[in-house]
């Protein structure tokens, strides 16, 4: 069909090998702190995109509140690290677990909602999380209205947990065997390893019993249920695993920037993550990577190239997005299966 189609025909293993070699050499090739930093942003969003891809791509659940799970992971890390001085690497599983539990608690009551309705509710949850983080402990004061818990009002007033609008400072840098990650290129390799690990895990998930069950639920929920698939459990697992991975991304992000604030987890972040998945090709791992390039790296390149016409940057970006949706609605690198679904119109 076109260049991309021909590219796809290459054995994927060679492609991944070539990309890995290129990625490993990247910091030496560019020799620029700024572009290494852009690459780190790319990795964080690739992780977020891959995690959201489980929920949106595999299980077909439209979710526009993914920043909430990212935030839970980041804040869990930040609070435990800055207060109790726990090494952030130890907090990786903790962040993932807390995000997963949080995801199960909020998604269980809304799982029966379909398509756009689910989408709207998740937007709401995302905003509630951000606003609660802003309001710090006072967002829990409502608990003191419960009879018997009046004493909480006094205790919660003035209590600092999330740091309100200012967020949290002084998050520990990650370290391993006496080595501490400081430079951008240190983090580059750390994140690269995590992205590689994630791609490896996602590929296996895709082709497993659970992966098939997700696809069945996306295709025909009633038939899936009638064939003995516990659709509630399977959808809950998609949310939990997706959220856990976003929580891990939050941990890595927090330990990288060492300062986090509620505004890093706004609705706009959820939109970017959703765009990464849809732009690249829903349900496709290479698609998520291409989508991340489009959403994270491309604006930075435009910033460089269009030095004199800075104010046009977002305009060009917007035009690119619109033409994408018109000319290539299945995404830049769609999964075979999703392309078929779009072509069939069902």
């Amino acid at each position, binding site marked *: 069909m076109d260049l991309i189609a021909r590219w796809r025909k290459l054995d994927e293993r060679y492609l991944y090998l070539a990309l890995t070699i290129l990625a490993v050499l990247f910091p030496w090739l560019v020799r620029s702190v700024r572009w290494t930093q852009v690459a780190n942003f790319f990795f964080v969003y690739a992780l977020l995109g891959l995690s959201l891809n489980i929920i949106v791509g595999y299980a077909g659940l439209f979710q526009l509140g993914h920043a909430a799970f990212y935030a839970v992971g980041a804040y869990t890390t930040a609070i435990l690290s800055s207060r109790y001085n726990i090494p952030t690497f130890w907090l990786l599983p903790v962040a993932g677990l807390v995000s997963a539990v949080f995801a199960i608690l909020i998604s269980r009551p809304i799982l029966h909602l379909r398509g756009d309705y689910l989408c709207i509710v998740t937007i709401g949850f995302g905003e509630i999380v951000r606003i609660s983080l802003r309001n710090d402990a006072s967002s829990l004061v409502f608990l003191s209205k419960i009879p018997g818990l009046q004493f909480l009002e006094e205790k919660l007033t003035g209590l600092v947990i999330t740091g309100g609008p200012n967020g949290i400072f002084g998050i520990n840098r990650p370290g391993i065997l006496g080595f501490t990650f400081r430079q951008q290129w240190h983090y580059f390799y750390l994140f690269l390893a995590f992205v590689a690990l994630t791609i490896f895990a996602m590929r296996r998930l895709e082709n497993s*019993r659970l992966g098939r069950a997700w696809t069945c639920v996306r295709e025909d929920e009633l*038939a899936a249920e009638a*064939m003995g698939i516990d659709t*509630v459990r399977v959808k809950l697992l998609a949310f939990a695993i997706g959220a856990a991975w976003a929580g891990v991304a939050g941990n890595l992000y927090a330990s990288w920037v060492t300062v986090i604030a509620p505004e890093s987890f706004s609705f706009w972040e959820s939109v970017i993550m959703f765009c990464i998945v849809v732009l690249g090709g829903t349900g496709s791992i290479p698609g998520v990577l291409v989508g991340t390039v489009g959403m994270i790296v491309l604006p930075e390149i435009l910033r460089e190239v269009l030095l004199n016409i800075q104010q046009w940057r977002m305009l060009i970006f917007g035009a690119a997005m619109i033409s994408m949706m018109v000319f290539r609605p299945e995404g830049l690198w769609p999964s075979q299966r999703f392309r078929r679904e779009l072509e069939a119109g069902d």
Partner: protein
Amino acid sequence: MALLEVRNLTKNFGGLTAVDRLDFEINEGEILGMIGPNGAGKTTVFNLISGIYPPDEGEIRLNGQSLLGLRPHSITEQGIGRTFQTIRLFRNLTVMENVMAGRHCRTRAGWLGAILQPKSQRLEEQSIREQAERHLQFMKLYEQRAELAKNLPYGDQRRLEIARALAIDPHLLILDEPAAGLNEQETNELMQSISQIRDSGITIFLIEHDMKVVMGISDRIIVLDNGKKIAEGAPAEVRDNPRVIEAYLGREE
């Protein structure tokens, strides 16, 4: 003992009573047919048995165990496989993957197993494939296993639905108009397959409009009209029953 026991089953949709105090049972190893004019409530009975609708009243027991309140997937797990009147395959999955999906409730691998792939998970995956292949061979779909389900001809899609339902290892297989839309030859093959499935020890309950099929393979038939059972018995008895003739053809004035 009866494999499936239905007692006093009632389902209302708004003011319409789709199924009205229905009593019947399915004996182990038989082929039970259900016929009735359009709108008699046959598919509703199927949906009540497979748990898609909750009944308003009554009791459904499989091997003496009540199925009420169970979600459809648990009822399937108890051993009731089904097909749909309007074909509901996973259209964008391959033929093979469709049948593999039917093995879901008989296998266990979770997310951690999928990622770490211990030996037990790989063996299980292999057994899923082998079982699926066996069912595809039985329903004569093995050659088409790599095709997408939606690209199969209509008759093959009907057979694939049966293969998928067989993959769950059912005690009871319920077939909703399996011969609908099939030509003469396909219908004959289907009747043969259904008999073979029964001979392998699976009890069959089917709705069918094609009288030749229903009369030809059923051991017993129940007749539904306006949600009520109006006749029950061997095919020949049912055929000559005046109430059945009336329900189908109307009363002679």
